[in-house]
């Protein structure tokens, strides 16, 4: 029942001890993680967007510059001049000096005939009238193609600019170095897996991709397009291989090409993963610390409670025992008192019988005989037994009495021998040499001699018990000394060579109910009552002991005031 009760308490305390810190702890970690995630994602997306816009600007400005180069040439030279291969080669060389992005240069007349060409291929004389790029350039004045194979069967793209000269349109076209352009587009640095590539309107790769994908391939990844022309769209999606990517897409000028910048999500949010691991680690360590501390504290509390409960039980039992003792004391005094009344009557009757017998004898009505002697002997015996009963009841009454202390001036030179005389017989029977040494200059002490007698008798009896325990019936020594001390104090020491007291018992020696005697033998009240008595006299009771050597009790009492009237 008790055990179960403590188990329930233990469970409750433990639960509270764990929950109270764990809930806010988890909450703090959760909130921290949430805000960290949100800010990290916002930052990652924002930087992705910014990079994509910057990158777009750069690519656009590169293309615009190349277009301006061609426009400059077209404006600076006539069709006739450029149609000459030698002049074209010279222009190309000058162009190359400025920008090595161009790989060739070609001039077309309005019929689409490749009039002059300078570059690694043999394209002079080919007719381009029906190609898409030629039609577009005639129509719009300039054209930047998607990557295509063309006559040379190699993926490439071209920039072409149309020029009108005296009513005749001619076209100047240059192929852009795919390698250089690729490098330009791919040149972004975002984490480990960040990459940039261009897609045309059909979703075909216009530049190579780090993560795989050749020119003119059509990657299977789902791409979300920005809503408007100049805006940037960011999203997270899985690619064809199931890897999650963080994307930013933006249209190039003319909505021809789409710039895609992407980074593996795990890479982009790498800090997030490590933060998550850190939080899990903190949660585990913190949690286990909380649980350990809770267990430790709960165990401590429950142990203390169990201990206190046991102490309470013990104290309760001791109280019951003490009150039973008091009850017995009271009962026995009442009992003794009641016995005294019939004893009184018996005594009176016995006296009366004696008188009657002597009267009868005087009158001669009773003859002297053996029977009469026996009768008188019986009568005497009755008288003796009544007196014996009276003695018993009186000693019971003395045991049960609780009197107010009556203080008088006590002279130790008389008092101590009186008290030691009471135990002298017991001591001599047990072979104990009893010495008393009362200094001649011991001052008078103002106290209740009955109380001090009780204290000393208690100490003597304890000492005798301890001596018997160690020496049996010979070799014991009990010394009582008294003498003046400084500051008007008187010291009484009771010294024995008994078995001594262990240091741990010495600490508890004056506690009520502490006893080393077997159950039922001692109440454990003796020394505590002595201590209380000495304390009420304004004195101090102290003890020193060594196991196997002996024990010394010291009582220090204030001497009586030399002039009692001052009191």
């Amino acid at each position, binding site marked *: 029942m008790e055990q179960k009760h403590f188990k329930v308490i233990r469970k409750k305390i433990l639960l509270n001890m764990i929950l109270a810190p764990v809930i806010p702890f988890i909450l703090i970690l959760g909130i921290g993680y949430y805000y960290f995630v949100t800010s990290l994602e916002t930052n990652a997306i924002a930087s992705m967007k910014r990079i994509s816009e910057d990158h777009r600007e750069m690519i656009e400005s590169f293309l615009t510059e190349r277009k301006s180069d061609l426009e400059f040439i077209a404006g600076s030279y006539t069709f006739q001049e450029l149609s000459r291969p030698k002049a074209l080669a010279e222009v190309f060389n000058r162009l190359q000096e400025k920008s090595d992005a161009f790989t060739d240069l070609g001039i077309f007349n309005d019929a689409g005939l490749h009039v002059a060409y300078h570059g690694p291929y043999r394209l002079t004389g080919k007719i381009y009238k029906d190609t898409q790029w030629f039609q577009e350039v005639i129509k719009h004045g300039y054209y930047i193609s998607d990557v295509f194979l063309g006559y040379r069967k190699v993926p490439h793209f071209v920039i072409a600019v149309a020029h009108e000269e005296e009513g005749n349109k001619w076209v100047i076209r240059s192929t852009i170095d795919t390698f250089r352009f690729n490098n330009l587009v791919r040149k972004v640095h975002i984490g480990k897996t960040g990459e940039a590539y261009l897609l045309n309107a059909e979703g075909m790769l216009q530049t190579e991709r780090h993560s795989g994908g050749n020119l003119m391939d059509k990657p299977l990844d789902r791409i979300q397009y920005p809503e408007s022309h100049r805006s940037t769209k960011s999203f997270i999606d899985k690619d064809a291989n199931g890897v999650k990517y963080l994307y930013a897409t933006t249209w190039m000028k003319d909505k021809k090409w789409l710039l895609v910048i992407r980074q593996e999500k795990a890479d982009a949010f790498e800090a997030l993963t490590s933060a998550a691991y850190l939080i899990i680690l903190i949660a585990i360590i913190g949690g286990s610390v909380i649980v350990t501390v809770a267990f430790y504290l709960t165990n401590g509390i429950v142990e203390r409670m169990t201990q206190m409960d046991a102490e309470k039980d013990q104290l309760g039992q001791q109280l019951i025992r003490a009150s039973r003792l008091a009850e017995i004391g009271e009962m026995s*005094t009442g009992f003794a*008192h*009641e016995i*005294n*009344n019939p*004893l*009184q*009557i*018996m*005594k*009176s*009757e016995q*006296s*009366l019988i004696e*008188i009657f017998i002597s*009267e009868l004898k005087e009158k001669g009505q009773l003859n002297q005989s053996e029977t009469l002697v026996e009768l008188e002997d019986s009568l005497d015996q009755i008288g003796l037994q*009544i007196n014996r009963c*009276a003695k018993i*009841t*009186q000693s019971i*009454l*003395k045991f049960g*009495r609780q*009197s*107010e202390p009556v203080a008088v001036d006590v002279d130790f030179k008389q008092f101590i021998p009186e008290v030691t005389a009471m135990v002298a017989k017991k001591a001599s029977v047990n072979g104990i040499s009893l010495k008393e040494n009362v200094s001649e200059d011991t001052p008078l002490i103002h106290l209740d001699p009955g109380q001090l007698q009780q204290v000393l008798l208690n100490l003597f009896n304890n000492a005798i018990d301890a001596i018997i325990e160690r020496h049996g019936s010979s070799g014991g020594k009990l010394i009582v000394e008294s003498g003046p001390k400084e500051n008007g104090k008187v010291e009484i020491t009771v010294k024995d060579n008994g078995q001594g007291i262990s240091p741990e018992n010495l600490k508890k020696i004056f506690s009520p109910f502490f006893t080393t005697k077997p159950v039922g033998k001692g109440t454990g009240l003796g020394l505590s009552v002595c201590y209380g008595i000495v304390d009420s006299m304004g004195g101090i009771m102290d003890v020193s002991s060594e196991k196997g050597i002996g024990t010394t009790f010291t009582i220090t009492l204030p001497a009586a005031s030399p002039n009692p009237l001052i009191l």
Partner: protein
Amino acid sequence: MEKMKMMLVDDEERFLSTTKKLMSKKGYDVITATSGAEALEKLKYKDIHVVILDVKMPDMDGITTLKEIKKLFPLVEVIMLTGHATVESAIDGLKSGATDYLMKPADIEELIQKADEAFEKRQKMEQKIRMAQARKFMKSPREIIRETEKP
């Protein structure tokens, strides 16, 4: 010499009757009462010198009876008879005006001895009172003249 008149007060009737017989054998006049109230009643009509009073009685206990007796009949000597060996009850009784106390069970001789002592005390007291009264009657002639001059 006046003869001592004693009263025994106790709730034990057998004690009263036996002790009365014993006392009579020894030549003492003894009357008895079984309660404090009865004792007080009897004191009103009879001249009693010494009362031997049990401390513990039902209704009116010994100490209360003692106080009543001392209030109403201050000259009556009271000896307390206690079954209780405590110093307190003895002290209590003595403080309230008892002459002496005896512990139960008491010898009849002891009882008689204490009673005799008490009676002696009583007689000394009466002697003193008589002396004082006699002095009052022996007025000086001057006093008599002064008293007759008064209207």
